[in-house]
């Protein structure tokens, strides 16, 4: 069972590296789906089956599909991939990459050398999560509802298009009416 965890972790890291190095956005999103599915397996191995299902449904399902729909609406051409290739030069990624990997090395060193905690071999299923969610965390659930509603209102407000004018003669039609 340990091997499953390590294989899924390796797949997740590899897929994420492929996401951040792709030029084509759709290819990156397909690798992102693989990464999310691998992380769902990791959640399952950590004893959280409910959250593994949520990861597949919400992240790999809803969020990625939403981003794919927006990319389809933007109707990007081949030039976008070429532009991405130009932007993704060696000089841009070498500095932040090395510095971030140094920080990651320090983090891994701290985690590995610190005292290894005893692992509780225990699965926390959906019933425990629900009892905790609707017991002590009920205010958080209500705040999440408020957040989602403001998200809907904000997305609608920002996504509104300007009124389309079918002909250039009609652009100033309202002003002409007032002058008449």
């Amino acid at each position: 069972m340990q091997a499953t965890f390590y294989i899924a972790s390796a797949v997740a890291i590899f897929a994420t590296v492929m996401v951040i190095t792709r030029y084509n956005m759709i290819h990156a999103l397909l690798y992102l789906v693989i990464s999310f599915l691998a992380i769902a397996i990791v959640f399952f191995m950590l004893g959280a089956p409910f959250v593994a299902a949520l990861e597949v449904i919400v992240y790999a399902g809803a969020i990625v599909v939403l981003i794919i729909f927006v990319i389809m609406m933007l109707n990007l051409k081949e030039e976008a991939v070429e532009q991405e290739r130009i932007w993704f030069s060696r000089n841009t990624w070498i500095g932040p990459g090395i510095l971030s990997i140094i920080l990651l090395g320090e983090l891994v060193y701290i985690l590995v050398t610190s005292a290894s905690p005893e692992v509780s071999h225990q699965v926390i299923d959906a019933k425990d999560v629900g009892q905790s969610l609707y017991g002590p965390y009920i205010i958080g659930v209500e705040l999440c509802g408020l957040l989602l509603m403001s998200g809907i209102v904000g997305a609608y407000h920002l996504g509104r298009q300007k009124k389309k004018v079918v002909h250039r003669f009609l652009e100033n039609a309202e002003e002409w009416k007032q002058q008449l």
Partner: protein
Amino acid sequence: METAAVEYGLVLAGTLFVLGLISVLIRRNIIFMLISVEIMLNAAGLAFIAAGARWGQADGQVMFIFIITMAAAEVSVGLALILQIYHQLKTLDSDAADKMKG
């Protein structure tokens, strides 16, 4: 069911977070930056799940549900902003949106 080691879950979370951070820093395409933020949020949730598994409590999973809610709201508003930027500037370059005209 036998569960996996917790500290390796934390190491995986840190690795994924750093990968997302690198991608936010090096990309100029605004959609790629949004995707990277999703990767980082997911890594933070993974750290919560690993910590919850270590203590055997449900609180980590509750926090992950809050994170997933926040990510959904964030991605919807972010994509609406991206659509507006693309319609106004005709590009996805994040550097093109640096002029604050009222």
